[in-house]
């Protein structure tokens, strides 16, 4: 049985959409601060959210003042690789493993990170677009436009799933026909513009 409006392709964001990477990154900082013996309050932890760690360490005041940036970055990487991979979000594995629709991963992260997060699930994707394939990242339409072109499908026939305003904007600007926002990271109010807002990926599986 196939639904008449089954999408030509499913375009999936990674961080926050398929994996709970925010909690993973927070744990990296907790581990690193603990190893350093530095206190870590909520405000300090929040200052790292959504930013590159080396930018924060280089520009913000904190217990790391005067420390070698390269050493600190290496320490953070060490804590990253010693943690288990970030958990998949609810319904992510089911969506990827059971859908019969062509799949593209459209992420602002690197291929290494996608492999770390998804493991064998990455093999289920027909196409992976990472930060290294595009000149302009989200919210620019380029990542989605590239995925659509490479898959050889029509943008209005595609369904994209995103968790962040920049990703929603990118997919909309690329003329993706159905942009679904999942509220794993941002509240529904921040995801205006998406055609549909859902709480979990189970609701996306049910659309296919």
């Amino acid at each position, binding site marked *: 049985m196939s639904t008449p409006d089954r999408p030509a392709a499913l375009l999936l964001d990674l961080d926050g959409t398929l994996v709970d990477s925010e909690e993973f990154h927070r744990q990296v900082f907790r581990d690193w601060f603990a190893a350093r013996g530095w206190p870590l309050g909520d405000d300090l932890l929040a200052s790292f959210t959504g930013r590159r760690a080396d930018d924060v360490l280089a520009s913000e005041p904190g217990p790391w003042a005067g420390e070698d940036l390269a050493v600190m970055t290496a320490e953070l990487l060490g804590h990253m690789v010693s943690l288990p991979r970030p958990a998949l979000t*609810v319904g992510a594995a*089911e969506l990827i*493993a059971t859908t019969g629709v062509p799949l593209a991963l459209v992420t602002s992260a690197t291929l290494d990170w996608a492999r770390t997060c998804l*493991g064998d699930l990455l093999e289920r994707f027909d196409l992976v677009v990472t930060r290294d394939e595009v000149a302009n990242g989200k919210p620019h339409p380029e990542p989605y436009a590239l995925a659509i072109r490479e898959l050889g499908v029509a943008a209005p026939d595609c369904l994209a799933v995103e968790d962040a305003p920049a990703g929603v904007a990118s997919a909309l600007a690329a003329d993706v026909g159905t942009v679904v926002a999942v509220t794993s990271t941002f509240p529904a109010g921040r995801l205006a513009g998406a055609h549909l807002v859902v709480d979990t990926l189970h609701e996306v599986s049910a659309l296919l």
Partner: protein
Amino acid sequence: MQVLSPCPGRVFPITEADDPVFAAEMVGPGVAIEPSPARTTVVAPVAGTILKLHPHAFAMVTADGLGVLVHLGINTVKLDGAGFELVASEGATVAAGDPMVVWNPAEISDDGITTTVLVVALDRPAGSLAELATGREVIAGEPLFSVDA
């Protein structure tokens, strides 16, 4: 609660399934079944609502909120429904043992496709099931495993 076998066959550990994603219990913990090679009506493993009904897979949710996925064969999505007859409807509420899909594992053969049936508890941690029927021959409706509701 108990999850019942959707079909007759030999039950074995899902970690031995010929699919790395299911074998790693990424979709969820469960069991694999080598189905009896004959025309078979696959039945609902639990009472609940049919969330999604594909020819090659269906997902249900019980009144307690337990999600159960039945995946008929590995890579069978490539068959695009050929060889599967749906006898239930998406959104319907059914009893355990109600008919869902008819297929004949003996007639399914293609490159990279196997007929192993996977029965998975969704959104549960790996290794969290009890009373697994692994290593046994079961008929449809016999208990496969139990899971905390």
